[in-house]
């Protein structure tokens, strides 16, 4: 096995006297996709913020390519939770993607070099058609494609996605997941994919990190998504069913969160 791109050792985070997670260990190798699951408030988004170096863990450490996350920020692609843009915002799809190339640099910048990258990223996600359209009038699915292009345009060393499928219809969900999957296979970028619904990503998931209060479990889908593991995590009887190619969790604290509504 190759050197891990991401390594987390003994990560613990306390927030307002509450332990979000404790002693979290994991490693991500090139091209691996890890889904992060768990109930609301389990600290899934917080974990991403720790991986970005925006929050310091209470204990433990994270290394990305052997360095502090904060030093790697400009090399991490980030797809945030869907947030609508103002309708009249003077910003085109192309501009949004371009910010992913050089938005963090000082000055006004020249257009030439970024344009090639932007054009390619727009093409890869099939967004060239609406590159000139103001982002505020695009549909949620179109905006999400641009977000993925924005996250991938700089050739990131690591991709973090926070509920990227939220509010997308199933067809767009599939497209979004396929785009991310295709990129990690081609570029070998590991992906941390926070989601409350495992099923849209199920075929692509290498590993599942399940956060539940101060307990957690990590492993393959077959290891983690079992009645025993989830019952242990939640401390109550949980049933995990495999229905054809779907995983359905019954009886959790937020029952119904893990399958399609």
């Amino acid at each position, binding site marked *: 096995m190759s050197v891990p791109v991401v390594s987390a050792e003994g990560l613990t985070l306390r927030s307002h006297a509450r332990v979000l997670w404790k002693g979290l260990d994991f490693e991500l190798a090139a091209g691996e996709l890890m889904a992060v699951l768990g109930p609301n408030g389990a600290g899934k988004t917080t974990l991403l913020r720790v991986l*970005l170096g*925006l929050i310091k863990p209470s204990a433990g450490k994270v290394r990305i390519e052997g360095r502090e996350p*904060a030093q790697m*920020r*400009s090399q*991490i692609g*980030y797809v*945030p*939770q869907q*947030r609508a*843009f*103002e309708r*009249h*915002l*003077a*910003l*085109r799809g*192309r*501009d*949004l993607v371009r*910010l*992913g190339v*050089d*938005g*963090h*640099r*000082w*000055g*006004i*910048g020249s257009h030439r070099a970024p*344009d*090639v990258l932007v*054009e390619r990223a727009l*093409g890869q996600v099939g967004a*060239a*058609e*609406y*590159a*000139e*359209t*103001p982002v505020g*009038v*695009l*549909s949620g699915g179109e905006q999400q494609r641009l*977000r993925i292009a*924005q*996250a991938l345009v700089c050739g990131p060393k690591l991709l*973090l996605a926070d509920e990227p499928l939220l509010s997308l219809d199933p067809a767009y969900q599939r497209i979004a997941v396929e785009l991310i999957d295709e990129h990690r296979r081609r570029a070998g970028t590991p992906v941390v994919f926070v989601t409350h619904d495992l099923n849209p990503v199920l075929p692509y998931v290498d590993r599942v990190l399940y956060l539940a209060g101060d307990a957690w479990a990590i492993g393959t889908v077959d290891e983690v998504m079992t009645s025993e593991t989830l019952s242990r995590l939640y401390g109550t009887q949980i049933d995990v069913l495999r229905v054809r190619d779907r995983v359905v969790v019954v009886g959790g604290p937020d029952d119904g969160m893990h399958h399609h509504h």
Partner: protein
Amino acid sequence: MFGQLLGQHFVHTALLAGAVVSIVCGAIGSFVVIRGLSFSVHAISELGFTGAAGALVLGLDPVIGMMSGSLLVGLVLGLLSLRGSERDSSIGAVLAFGLGVGVLLLSLYQGYATEATNLLFGSIVGVDDAQLRALILVAAIVLAGLTAIYRPLLFASVDPEVAEARGVPVRAISVAIFVLLALTTAEAIQVVGVLLVLTLVITPAAAAQRLTARPGLAIAISIAIAFVATEGGILLSLAQPWPTSFFISTISFAIYLVARIRPRPSAPGAAFSARVRVRVRPGASVPADAARAARRAPSSPVPQRSGRSTQRASPRSVPRPPRY
């Protein structure tokens, strides 16, 4: 009469000062509009007034007092980095108190009442050479600052979460924009007065956001509108001796109305660059775009009103360039 006035030195100074101030206001306005800082601008200018009134009482240059008042409030607002309704209400509370203090200070001031009126409503024709030099210096500082932080400022303004994730120091940027805003406001007060700062900082930029979707072009259009309104207002007030601020705010508002009424181009990049876009980089995979642009370019029909601006999928209408 009008012709004679045009030859006067004080008119030249006024026109120059107006040009300088309008460029700065137009430039920063785009970010003010994107970040939703209209109320903050108002607070900064009104507390600039308090500062100026304080300076008058102390026998100091009111411009210095105004600059200090604006900067202080700008810094506080930037450092607090409040959001949403909390920002709204706390600015309201501080603003009201500051104005109350300003009223007291003015009542203590024994000098000419015109000083106060000038602060509130502007006195562009009263700008002297020394003030003009100061205006130019401050304008240069603001423009240099905006240029230096342009990309991270745009990123943090339109997409704060990803900007932060990508390493943009969003908090520092917020402080910086408030400081630049305070300097800009102090400039604008000298032209249009405390009560009308928004007419140069907000109105042109708000109109520009409706006319294009290109961020850089929006700034250029905003500057152009502020420039036309200011210079037009000064010239009109020479012909018809009504307050300059009235003319400036009227021109600015008229352009804003036109921009609002006019349906926004649905593919606004096209509005100003359809022809440029046709010669897309070779190899770029946008044949569809090129074809569309080619279809669009030769004979520009009147914009199709049918779809308004709402549906992106509607046939992309041919937008007219803005008229100003």
